[in-house]
Structure formats: structure tokens, C-alpha cells
């Protein structure tokens, strides 16, 4: 266990930056490479790293299983919610143009919202998959 010291310290240092980078990828996705999927995976990787170093129990204290299970459908709900909202506004499913006053902003809003949905689902799913495999008896 003593050998873990370097790993533990490094992990503690790394994790905030990973989260920050995930958020950067998430919100920069509108302009450059990136988006919800990548950000979600990076976030999940953060959780997985934490679990690898500090143990599954510690990780599940920080990100409980119930939260993860809640996140998976929540993201899809955000996505379909945007779509249904545009339908209520009288347009087609996921017609972003109806989300704002002018088309450019409306498109940006639409992409942002959908990407947030993707982020929630992907980070949730990736973590859930890890929990599922890691939680099995050896």
C-alpha cells in the first residue's frame, strides 16, 4: 500500500484538471473539435481513475451508483425534451431554429442543450459500465 503514495498524490493532482478539461471540451465543442461525447468519456475516465487508485467503495461514495443510474436516462430525457419542446413550438422534432430569436443563437442553444444531454448520458453510461464490471466478484 505504501507504494501507492506517488500514484495517490498524482491522481489527486490530476483529477481537477481532468474535470476542467472535460468542461473545456464540452463547451468548446460548438466551435472546435470536442463535444458531449468526448467530455463525457473524459469525466468517466476521471471517476475510473479515482476508483482504480482509491478503490471502488471510495469512488462510489463520491459518485453513488444511484446517481449514475439516474444520469443515464436523464441525458436522453434532456435530448428528447429539446426535441419535444421544438415540436410544441410548432416545428419539427429537434428544429433548433425555434429555440431563440435569431437563427444563429437558436442553433447554438440547440447544440449546447443536446450536447449537455449527451454529456450526462455518456459520462453516466461509461461510469455505469465500469461499476458493473468492477463490482463483480473475482
Amino acid at each position, binding site marked *: 500500500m505504501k507504494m501507492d503514495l506517488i500514484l495517490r498524490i498524482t491522481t489527486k493532482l490530476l483529477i481537477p484538471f481532468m474535470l476542467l478539461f472535460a468542461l473545456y471540451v464540452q463547451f468548446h465543442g460548438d466551435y472546435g473539435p470536442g463535444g458531449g461525447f468526448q467530455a463525457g468519456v473524459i469525466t468517466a475516465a476521471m471517476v475510473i481513475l479515482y476508483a482504480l487508485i482509491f478503490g471502488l467503495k471510495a469512488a462510489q461514495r463520491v459518485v453513488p451508483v444511484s446517481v449514475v443510474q439516474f444520469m443515464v*436516462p436523464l441525458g*436522453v*430525457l434532456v435530448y*428528447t425534451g429539446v*426535441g419535444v419542446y421544438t415540436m410544441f413550438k410548432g*416545428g*419539427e422534432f*429537434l428544429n*433548433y431554429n425555434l429555440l431563440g430569436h435569431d437563427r444563429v443563437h437558436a442553433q447554438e442553444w440547440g447544440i449546447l442543450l443536446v450536447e449537455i444531454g449527451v454529456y450526462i448520458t455518456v459520462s453516466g453510461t461509461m461510469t455505469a459500465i465500469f461499476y458493473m464490471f468492477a463490482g463483480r466478484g473475482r
Partner: protein
Amino acid sequence: MSSSQLPALQVVLPLLGAVICAFLRRGTLAWGVALCVTWTMPVIALSMLWQVLATGPISYAMGGWAPPWGIEYRVDMLSGFVLFLVSGVAAVIIPFARKSIATEIDSTRQAWFYTMYLLSLCGLLGITITGDAFNVFVFLEISSLSTYVMIALGRDRRALLAAYQYLIVGTIGATFYVLGVGILYSLTGSLNMVDISSRLGELGFQPPVLAAVAFLFVGISLKLALFPLHSWLPGAYAYAPSFATAFLAASATKVAVYLLVRYFFSVFSVSQIFEGLPVSEILIVLSVAGMIGASLVAVFQEDVKRMLAYSSVAQIGYMTLGIGLANKQGLTGGIVHLFNHAITKAALFLAVGAIVYRMKTCKIDDFAGLGRRMPLTMGVFVLAGLSIIGTPGTAGFVSKWFLAVGALEEGWWWLVAIVMVSSLISVVYIGRVIEIAWFREAKPIADNAREPPASMLLPMLFLAGCVVYFGFATSMSAGYASKAAAHLLGAEQAIEVPAAAGTKQ
């Protein structure tokens, strides 16, 4: 929201329902959601079908992006028909699910099952409604992935194995499909089916088209379990929860058959597929092999679900035979068999599901004496079995009639004989179950067997009623199918008359 939103709702509602189910913990609540969603589906499908009949195909631009650039949802005669079929059968059988699922799946996983069921429904309806070749792939995978999970939820550990095998085969199939689409995309630069079709017409025949046809054919055939590619089906049907089996048997393979028809007749044209290439011959040979081979295998099964699964493989042969004949009567027979077999097999699997509900087994030997203990359930089984055999007065006869007429119009009397021999074999395997159920002494295991509760009995009886009703009143099933067939064949001939003259003979 106006009625113009219907195409999107058809797919979005099951998706939304699946999300809601995923939040729920209690199986019964999830079932309630699934019930509400599933019962809206045929209403939507029917009103779209009405609109199609009145004013022609409906086109819906997803996200406001006009086709061919955006994803188009397109409802025409054929897809409207299949949408109604899938959603209608699902709506009829969903009341059956609650009690059946409650006994076959752990209570913690029931809500999860309904999530997967709704996702699968969403995927299947999506495949049917979308007019975008790549979007089909996405929906194909949505439905397949959720189906793998549904199968894996079966009690038996062999369910896991069946799900795994289906996953491997299904993924290969889907990947082949994507390959085909990729080739079409690099040839035409479009993913919209209508657009691809018109651009292919301009291009004329090029060798890569052949590769595309081959990949699409094999990929879709894996999904629809065409004879030598059917290995995943018996295990999947036998070990999945009973309700899932009934749902899949009535919808999944049917949608795949639809996809094959869509590609052969709408995306490609009759001249490219049936006159330039030996597709017709291949299809007919494989169909015939399936009809005879799978029926023979069915005779030797010890498990009723497995037996019915092999019978499905054989019955799929009838549908592909209709496609292979590629004349109006034959294609009508194929499409109407899609419909008839869906209701017939759903009724059969529901009856078996009810027996599993009471007996916890579906070995043929354990059916002994059930004819008197569960007369209504077995009555449904007999009636639907007669439709599988193709007795006149049941739905199965109608499709066989059209197929035989289609074959005779080509002058292939031997094909008629093979169709009939195949139904004769089905007499053997259906008759075996009936004989045991009525004329063998009941085993101790059947002591508690009695009719299932009304929520399970009514869907069965309704489907059995449909089997007889569509055996006589064919204006809806066969009438519509022949319109769709004429539409599919007619539309092509308009495009390819000059090309046909060159390729023929």
C-alpha cells in the same frame, strides 16, 4: 402540435417512454407507461396510413433540415402498412406482459425490461419510418441492442449464450449493412433512399453496385434469419422471456423483411436486382431450403418454443419466396404473409407463454393433458397452428394462395409442390403438440394448470380471432398488400423500362 408531427411522434414517444421507464423502479408502473405508449402507437400509425391513402406519401424533415440533406421520415404505402402491423401487434400483446414478465423476471429488473422493450419498439418503428439509409443503421442497432438485453433477461442461463450469439451475428449483419450503405454513399453522395434511387438510375450499372447489393443482402438476411443465416434465431426465441419472444417473432424479423423489400424494390430497381443479377434465383433457392429444412428440424425439437422458432425460419422462407418471385401476385403473397405470420406467431407464442406462466416449462412432453386443463389456451394454439399449416379459413391460407398463384404465373409448378410439402411437414410438428396435449394423460406437473388470467387470455383470443378474420376478410390485409406490391413494382417499371430491354435475355 398538429397532425404533421405524427411521423416524429411515432418514434419519439417510445423513446420518451423508455426514458421514463428507466427512472422507475417498480415493474408495474413501468408496464403502465409501456401500455400507454404502446396503445398510442397504432392510433398514430393508422392515422398516417389514412393520410397516405388519401394524399400520398408523407415526408417529414427531422430538425427542419430538408431532404436529401437532412434525415427524412417517409411514410408510404408499404412502410405505413408495416408500421401499423408492428405497432398493432405490440398494442395487442402488451396487456399480456404484466403477469408474464412478473413471473419470469426478477422484480428488480422488470422496469429495465420495459425500458428495453420500448427502446426496441422505437428502433423497429424507426427502421420502418426513416427514409435515410444511415439512420436505418442507427435504429437497427437501437432495436438490436435492446433485443440482446431482453433475451439476456431470460431465466435460463442459456439465454445469456443465446444473447451473446445473437449479438455477434447481429453486429456482423449490421456492419455488413453499413458497408453496403457506405459503398452506395461513395457512389451517389447521398444517404436519402429516394435520392439514392434516382441517382443510381442516372449512374446506370457499375460494378460497385454489385458489391453494395451483396453486402446489403447478406446484412439484412442475417437480421431476418434467412435460411443458412438463421442460427441465432432458435436460441434467442427459445430462451428469451415469453413476452419478448412473442414481440420479437411478430415484429423484428418482419421489419427486416420490410427492409429487404425496401432496398430491392425502392432503392434499387427491379431491373437491377432481378433481371441483371441472379438475386431471384438465390432468394428462391434459399427460401425453399429454409421452408423444407427448417420445418424438418422443427419436427425433432423437444421444446415448443424452439420448435416454433424453427417454424418461424421456415415461414420467413415464404416471405422471401414472395420477394424472389418479384411478380405482383408473389410479392402480394410475401407482404401479406408478413402480416398474417406476425399475428399467427404472436398468438402461438402467447399461448406458449401462458403455458409457461402456469407450468414453468415448455417441453413438448409436459403438454400432456393440457388440452382439457387449458382448453382456451390450447384452442388458440390449434387455431394459430392451423394458420401455420395454411388451412383454408385461416390467415395462413391467404398468403399461401397468393404465393402459389404467383409461382404458377411464372410456370413453376414444382415450386407450388414444394410450398405444399413444406406445409405438410408443419402438419407433423403442430399435430404432434396437439396430439400430446389432448390424447396423453396429464403429468403430475400439470396438476395446477388452469386457464391463465384474463389479461393474458384476452390478447390471445383477440389474435386468434384475427387469424380467422383475416382468413376471410382479406380486403384489409391482402387488398392492401396487393396495392403496396403494385406500387412497388409499378414505380420501378416506370423508371427502368429502357434498361430492362437491354438486360433481359
